[in-house]
């Protein structure tokens, strides 16, 4: 259990870091990816917390689908910007 505890702390730190990173970086794609990383770590934590279905959902929807949607939105807004220029 102590090991698990340590893992959780590590992952927590990683999540916090990438969350901060997501907010700090200028590049939107990087921050979308960083948020995806947060979700991914979260799903691992869920697994450790005996919540496998949540973990699966988080990984698929939170980390996967969500990131895709964000990227799509970025694409849409960038396109228009370029067309405009």
């Amino acid at each position, binding site marked *: 259990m102590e090991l698990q505890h340590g893992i959780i*702390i590590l992952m*927590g730190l990683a999540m*916090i870091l990438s*969350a901060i990173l997501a*907010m700090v970086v200028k590049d939107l794609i990087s921050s979308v990816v960083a948020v995806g990383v947060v979700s991914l770590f979260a799903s691992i*934590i869920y697994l450790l917390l005996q*919540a496998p*279905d949540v973990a699966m959902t988080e990984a698929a929807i939170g980390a996967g689908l969500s990131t895709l949607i*964000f990227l799509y939105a970025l694409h849409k807004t960038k396109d228009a910007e370029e067309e405009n220029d």
Partner: protein
Amino acid sequence: MNIIHVIGFILMLIGFWGMLTQKNMIKIVLALAIVETGLQLVMVAFGFIKGRTAPILDSAELVNNPASMIVDPVPQALVLTAIVIGVAVNALMLTFVIRLYQKKKTLSITEYKDLKW
């Protein structure tokens, strides 16, 4: 309070901070997503009971005596719903962002202040 609560709350605070400081609308939506992730962590942690197993009744032992063996399934069910809804809301927000972008060609939230006072 255990460590996961702390992580979750820190994530939420980072998200709030992001929502307050980021000017880019997509980043604000991202920040909200971080808040939601943090929240979901907290929620699952509320249901977690040390030494218990997942609420999947895959053995006879569990079927016979679920209440003392498994972690609380309800928060997990809630979180599942919350995740789905959260993503749906985020997606909807992004469509709004895209539409707004088409109107004014900018993603800066400070440019959308026509409605005020």
